[in-house]
């Protein structure tokens, strides 16, 4: 069990900056994000895009903003659980919460801050009968531990960078790797594409182009994948694993089940302190909604500052909060 003052759900720019505002008030934070890295949309969707409306930065690359935020919050020693989705919030008798993730990590926190942006990024799934039957029993959307695939027959589907990269990597580990792609060419990095064509011509992988996934089969666990090629001819391949890699798409996910008031996929908050209707649960950044809401990073930063001053009373119920400027007191680490 991880113990912390605040558990921040979502490690995007607003979740990260919230650590800073909490730190100024001597509150410790643990962050959880479904993605394997911090930065939220900025790192996942547009790391190289310039942002022009961050005060003080005429132009800043999305990934640079994330890196700078990480630098800024370092003095407050935040801790992270990445690559896990928050599934449950359980209220304790003293009002605090225990947070449980998809991988059964438990975090005990006095206050919950939902900075979940658009929700969790979840893998896009191909439309196939019985897909769910084999999820976790041969079908996986993420390569967490490549060793899982040692000596196995693996089929990958997709044509982007991650499909190319994992095909190259797994060709050294798996018994047999087949890459299925719907086109004749790849739009991923040209180097990786060239390497994949090389591996195919050397017979180290099977590359099946202009083909689509049609069926998955097995008896309890996956043992075959059926494709349709351009002429709609069926090709059946023996497979221990199928890894569809069609990118990620945001879903509100379990947040919808936490008893909060939700309007159009966003959590309704009180604009005095960005609290939800449930005590000790706050929502900041793109995930919240109120009259006049603007989904801007800078608005999320503002919300984080206001919200932390409100949360203080739950972390230090016996203390009076005094407002201080960083210019007067500096940034005092824990």
């Amino acid at each position, binding site marked *: 069990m991880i113990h912390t003052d605040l558990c921040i759900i979502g490690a995007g720019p607003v979740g990260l900056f919230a650590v800073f505002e909490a730190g100024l008030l001597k509150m410790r934070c643990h962050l959880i994000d479904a993605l394997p890295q911090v930065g939220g949309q900025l790192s996942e969707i547009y790391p190289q895009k310039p942002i022009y409306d961050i005060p003080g930065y005429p132009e800043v690359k999305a990934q640079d903003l994330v890196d700078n935020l990480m630098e800024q919050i370092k003095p407050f020693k935040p801790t992270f659980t990445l690559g896990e989705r928050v599934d449950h919030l359980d209220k304790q008798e003293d009002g605090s919460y225990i947070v449980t993730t998809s991988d059964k990590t438990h975090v005990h926190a006095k206050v919950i801050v939902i900075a979940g942006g658009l929700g969790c990024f979840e893998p896009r799934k191909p439309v196939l009968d019985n897909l769910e039957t084999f999820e976790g029993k041969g079908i996986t959307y993420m390569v967490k531990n490549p060793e899982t695939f040692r000596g196995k027959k693996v089929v990958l589907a997709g044509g982007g960078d991650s499909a190319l990269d994992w095909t190259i990597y797994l060709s050294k580990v798996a018994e047999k790797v087949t890459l299925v792609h719907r086109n004749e060419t790849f739009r991923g990095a040209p180097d990786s594409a060239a390497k994949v064509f090389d591996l195919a011509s050397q017979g180290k992988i099977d590359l099946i182009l202009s083909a689509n996934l049609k069926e998955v089969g097995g008896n309890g666990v996956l043992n075959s994948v059926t494709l349709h090629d351009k002429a709609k001819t069926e090709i059946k391949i023996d497979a221990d694993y199928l890894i569809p890699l069609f990118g990620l798409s945001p879903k509100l996910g379990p947040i919808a089940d936490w008893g909060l008031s939700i309007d159009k*996929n966003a959590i309704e908050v009180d604009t005095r302190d960005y609290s939800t209707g449930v005590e000790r649960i706050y929502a900041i950044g793109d995930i919240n909604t109120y009259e006049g809401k603007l989904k801007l990073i800078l608005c999320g930063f503002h919300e984080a500052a206001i919200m932390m001053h409100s949360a203080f009373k739950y972390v230090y119920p016996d203390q009076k909060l005094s407002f201080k400027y960083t210019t007067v007191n500096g940034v005092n680490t824990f």
Partner: protein
Amino acid sequence: MVNFTVEDHDGNRQEIEAPDDMGFSLMEILKASEYPVLATCGGMALCATCHVEILEGKDELGEATDVELDQLENLPEYYPTSRLACQIRIGDILEGAVVKLRGEDVV
């Protein structure tokens, strides 16, 4: 003004009238018309959540750019009629078109 037809996830069709002189994209008009379009990336052709099919009038819209095709081709479902609504500017080219929503429903 430009008139075109939108078909939602349930197959219901509605005629939409949109201003063609304000630089809006089709994605923005769909959102403004209360259709469940996520548009996560805000119109940068980076997330494909505004995926639509142009059932009628696709040729008039011209070719998709490489950036757009990159996103489209990585979707699990991709059709010859597929486009990203954020990459289509509202203009005469859309007059009479039929647009079918494809991006994941937000609910």
